[in-house]
């Protein structure tokens, strides 16, 4: 699969995850979100940027349980809980946010 944006073609897997992490930019994230009827707020970006940093450090996309705990540690308990994260990303915080962040689908429970 693939989509076109600003004259460039981006390859994705069958679930819409970017094939080449290196091609990611913030327009790609905004485009993918728009396709899901989601407008990216600052709170969304906080999670997306966190995931990109996590991937950079560990070379894996974290499972949802690990993401929730890590967000809580970094951004505070009011953000490190399932309710907050599911409100931002109703299709599943790890699954949906990883997609916008250009990462592969998370390893383990999404």
């Amino acid at each position, binding site marked *: 699969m693939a989509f076109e944006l600003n004259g460039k073609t981006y390859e994705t897997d069958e679930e819409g995850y970017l094939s080449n992490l290196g091609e990611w930019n913030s327009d790609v994230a905004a485009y993918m979100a728009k396709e899901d009827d989601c407008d990216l707020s600052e709170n969304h970006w906080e999670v997306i940027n966190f995931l990109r940093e996590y991937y950079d450090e560990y*070379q*894996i996309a974290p*499972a949802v*349980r*690990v993401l929730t705990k*890590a967000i809580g540690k970094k951004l505070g308990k009011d953000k490190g809980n399932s309710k907050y994260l599911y409100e931002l990303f109703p299709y599943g915080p790890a699954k949906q946010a990883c997609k916008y962040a250009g990462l592969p689908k998370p390893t*383990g*429970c999404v």
Partner: protein
Amino acid sequence: MSETKKFMYINRHAPHGTVYAHEGLEVVLIGAAFEQDVCMAFIGDGVFQLKQDQDTSEAGMKNFSPAYRALGDYEVNKLYVERESLQERGLSEADLMPLTWEDEDDDWAEKPSIRVVSRAEMSDLLEEQDVILNF
């Protein structure tokens, strides 16, 4: 609630020549969601998986070794490394990545995950397990 079982994942292969190490690590990370009593063992060439400063750029493989550092986040914090296997390959504990986990019950204190054990101790550990998976 079903009973917690003791799981051991045994790693016997060097990291990048075959898919055993990478696939095995993925299984551990996925399996971590089931909240069992999990440990990993590194025996034979498997000890190379934990070597510090791996560089796969010449090999054209993804260097997945940083992912071992995420194991603590997944509450996998018992990584047994066989001392004899290290010695036979000219390695010591100082050549391994310093892997740690944070103990939630001890004010998030950082504790080491790697435990170097003798071949005899490894044999006892195997004896204790309910389930053993080989990679």
